[in-house]
């Protein structure tokens, strides 16, 4: 479990950043806490803050979050054989805490020959607790900072997204997909179609992957 410390440190920093940015965007503390408690997905929560700030209708927010989280289907499918030992209620409980980080740590554990589901559950739930504590710290800090634009804090979400994309690049096609998605969404927003910009660009750009051979 000791190898989890760097991940926990990152979750603490990103969770605090989320609290700060969400508070700065004008969301109420209770709304921000509910997002971390109920949604518990970093990229989605940052995306929600940005979509809220553009007064995006709720159905579009929900569909955008669903698309961002479709990757969970792949991760959960990959963990399915290991959780098969649990009864249905246990599997439904374990599923709530599935994140990129807990998936990565659990996969590493199982690849090394580990069999213990307690490893996944302990780590995944620890991240949930940490994420929510960090959110509250961020809300307190965010309420104390003045105009966010003065310090460039409003750019923190965008910088976080860019970092996530850069770290997720696995092959050249990923670079092309990311650039196409960004440019199409930016062009649509400039053209006045900001409500559908993200979802359209996000759904169209991955078609490139369908036609590119590895």
């Amino acid at each position, binding site marked *: 479990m000791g190898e989890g410390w760097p991940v926990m440190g990152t979750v603490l920093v990103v969770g605090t950043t989320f609290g700060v940015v969400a508070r700065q965007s004008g969301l109420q503390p209770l709304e921000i806490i509910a997002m971390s408690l109920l949604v518990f997905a970093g*990229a989605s929560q940052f995306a929600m803050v940005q979509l809220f700030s553009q007064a995006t209708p709720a159905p579009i*927010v929900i569909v955008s979050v669903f698309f961002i989280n479709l990757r969970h*289907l792949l991760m*959960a499918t990959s963990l399915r054989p290991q959780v098969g030992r649990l009864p249905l209620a246990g599997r439904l409980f374990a599923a709530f805490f599935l994140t990129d980080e807990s998936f990565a740590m659990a996969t590493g554990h199982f690849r090394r020959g580990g069999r213990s589901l307690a490893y996944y559950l302990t780590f995944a739930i620890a991240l949930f607790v940490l994420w929510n504590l960090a959110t509250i710290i961020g809300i307190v800090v965010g309420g104390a900072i003045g105009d966010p634009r003065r310090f*460039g804090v409003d750019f923190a979400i965008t*910088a976080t997204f860019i970092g996530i994309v850069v770290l997720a690049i696995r092959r050249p096609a990923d670079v092309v997909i990311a650039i196409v998605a960004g440019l199409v969404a930016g*062009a649509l927003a400039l053209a006045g179609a900001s409500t559908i910009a*993200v979802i359209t660009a996000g759904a169209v750009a991955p078609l490139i992957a369908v036609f590119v051979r590895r």
Partner: protein
Amino acid sequence: MIWIAIVGSALATYLTRSLPFAVTLGGRLPPAATRYLEALPVAIIAALVGPAVVAPEGALTHGAEPVAAALVVAAVAWRRSLLAGVIAGVVAVALIRMA
């Protein structure tokens, strides 16, 4: 409106986490569908970046955001650290806007 979006997003997120744990899928997805699903997260997140860099607050950028975005890419690629990128981007945007 915000609460509907929060509860709806929570349900949508839980659905993606729990579906494969709840049911046993027979067979595999076609390779094209797998490739599409694998590319989807990066594309969505990149699509979120586009408007924020090109058209912050709905109008064409004055230049601070694209320059800072390039610095973030460089910082993250170099340090392999999200935090390094966020610090580089926030500091760059604050300095350029001040200039």
